[in-house]
């Protein structure tokens, strides 16, 4: 087993990985840009290394500096988290060349499944149904226009190296297609450092259902069942659940088998997710492979009891998978809601800035994977994800009720967050009935608008607050105390080179 690993990421996922390492007796090295100097995740690492300026290209996407940090700190492996370099074959290759183990698939497998176009061809070969579209990334505009004509509008433009909804745009005609290609290329370049894009037919009202797969270096492979991630905004998942309210055990077995076949055909080792779209007649189509730990992995952990991050580390170190497919079953129901720093009352504008107060929900079946604290300044340079609320209970309806209560008790003050919006989604009768699809938010927008029902209670609070200025300052002192606490533990040592 490894003695020390470097976590090439930031925020809540860096903490998630650090926790797994601590439990396994592995030391961790955290890396940070100058914008993350005061970030919570560094408090969970044994060492911290500054890797550059705030812009992702000069820090979290800077391969030479990260490799250099790994060598200088003497780690045996690197965990890339999600986003940034997690699915970058150049990075995986750089690790391989420097005798550092990349906790993820090989550079070769990454290049195959990371290229959404190449992975479509692989899926087609093993007989998985795929959505009609390009089998090579387009260069010339006319190639895109021809393909759009062939499959029919609407089409969706996607980044070949994409993920997490970045660089995706829908086009309804030639004019929109041209604009979308330009937007996608620009966003893909900034998010993934590569501007290749392709198009495929856009399905109306599909469900997004994905399968978590684990495969070891010895060829053993299991799937950990599905996650339904149909609640999306701008192609970004915001609420996920497992089991899916529509999957039968028969369909689960069929999709799970397909997922395992794709992973095996790609000679993919480690944790990976095979994404499918499902139409209203329950036909499923292969979408893409996500070659990383997913943001939504905790819901699978909650219902299967299997620790995915630990399994990633065990597989990377060469251990044999000791789980058989027959051992995997889903117990109860889990929902994840992603907490973002954005203003749901104002067009979801990003809301970086200082967090004045945080109170996380607690109780049976409640898990919070968070990267924030009171007094922290949320930087504007990165993804708006602040934390994830993961809720487990016995049945779907019990889990919905528990999630609503947990969101009521999740208080983040000082910046805007999407907490009220998440709550309104989960409270809709359509959500309770499990009538989910990827356009759910657009279709139910009128019932998702802010109600501000408690305005008078809030105004009374404001009046009482003004009355008690003196006592309020005591509270502020308390907050500033709690914000100094995490700092008492930092900086066992740090080096800075860039």
């Amino acid at each position, binding site marked *: 087993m490894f003695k020390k690993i470097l976590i090439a990421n930031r925020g809540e996922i860096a903490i998630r990985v650090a926790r797994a390492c601590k439990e396994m007796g592995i030391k961790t090295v955290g890396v940070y840009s100058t914008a993350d100097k005061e970030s919570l995740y560094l408090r969970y690492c044994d060492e911290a290394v500054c890797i550059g300026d705030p812009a992702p290209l000069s820090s979290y996407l800077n391969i030479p500096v990260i490799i250099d940090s790994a060598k200088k700190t003497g780690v045996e492996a690197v965990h890339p988290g999600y986003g940034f370099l997690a699915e970058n074959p150049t990075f995986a290759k750089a690790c391989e060349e420097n005798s550092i183990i990349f906790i993820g698939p090989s550079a070769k497998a990454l290049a195959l499944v990371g290229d959404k176009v190449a992975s479509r061809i692989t899926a087609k070969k093993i007989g998985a149904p795929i959505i009609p579209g390009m089998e090579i990334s387009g260069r010339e505009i006319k190639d895109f226009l021809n393909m759009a004509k062939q499959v029919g509008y609407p089409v969706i433009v996607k980044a070949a190296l994409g993920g997490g909804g970045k660089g995706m745009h829908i086009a309804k005609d030639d004019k929109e297609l041209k604009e979308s290609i330009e937007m996608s290329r620009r966003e893909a370049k900034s998010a993934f450092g590569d501007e290749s894009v392709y198009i495929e037919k856009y399905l109306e009202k599909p469900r997004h259902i994905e399968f978590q797969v684990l495969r070891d270096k010895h060829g053993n492979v299991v799937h950990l069942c599905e996650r339904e991630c149909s609640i999306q905004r701008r192609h970004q998942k915001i609420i996920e659940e497992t089991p899916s309210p529509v999957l039968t055990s028969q369909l689960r077995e069929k999709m799970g088998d397909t997922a395992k076949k794709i992973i095996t055909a790609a000679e993919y080792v480690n944790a990976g997710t095979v994404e499918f779209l499902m139409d209203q007649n329950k036909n499923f189509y292969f979408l893409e492979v996500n070659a990383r730990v997913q943001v939504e992995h905790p819901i699978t952990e909650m219902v299967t009891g299997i620790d995915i991050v630990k399994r990633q580390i065990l597989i990377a170190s060469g251990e044999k998978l000791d789980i058989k497919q027959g051992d995997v079953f889903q117990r109860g129901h889990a929902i994840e809601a992603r907490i973002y720093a954005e203003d749901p009352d104002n067009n979801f504008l990003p809301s970086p800035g*200082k967090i004045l107060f945080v109170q996380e929900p607690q109780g049976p079946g409640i898990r919070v994977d968070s990267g924030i604290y009171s007094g922290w300044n949320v930087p504007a340079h990165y993804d*708006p994800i602040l934390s994830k609320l993961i809720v487990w209970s016995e049945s779907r309806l019990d889990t919905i009720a528990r999630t609503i209560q947990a969101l009521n008790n999740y208080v983040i003050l000082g910046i805007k967050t999407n907490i009220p919006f998440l709550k309104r989604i989960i409270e809709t009768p359509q959500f309770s009935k499990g009538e989910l699809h990827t356009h759910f938010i657009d279709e139910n927008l009128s019932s998702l608008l802010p109600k501000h029902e408690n305005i008078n209670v*809030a105004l*009374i609070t404001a009046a009482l*607050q003004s009355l008690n200025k003196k006592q309020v300052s005591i509270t502020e002192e308390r907050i500033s105390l709690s914000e100094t606490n995490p700092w008492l533990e930092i900086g066992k040592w740090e080096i800075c080179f860039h």
Partner: protein
Amino acid sequence: MEIKVNFLNKTYKIILEKEGDFYKIIINEKKYEVSDFTICAGGISFRVNGNFFSINYAEDKDKKFIAVDGEYYVFEPEKMEKKKTGTVATEKSNIVVSPMPGLLVKVPVKIGDKVQTGTTLAIVEAMKMQNELRTPIDGVVKKINYKEGEQVDAFVPIVELET
């Protein structure tokens, strides 16, 4: 005591009077009797017209942040100047500003260009989201105050138009 606060461009007047063991609060001519008022770490609890509430709040400069059962309120003092919004034009302005701080990734127009309502004048990126700033009016580009690749603050003029 009387205080005025702004919430989503609307002003609310609150009158507060102490009457023996409780407070009388009047909002929009509606009366509330508030009792059992305690304030503690990040929270206020009170009873109003018989119902009990426990509310989290925070304060920063003049702003009051309040959370009530998953709903959020940010109150600003009444005199605070109304900020111009750049994207969805509620006000017809010839100055285009970004409603959030971020990186100016693109200015697809140049000085002297004639632009029509809805034309994108600038693209600002923060937290990986690109925000297109469109003109709420027809006009001619008079001034561009930043270069592509520069960092811009919220509510500073980026592009100015002449009508």
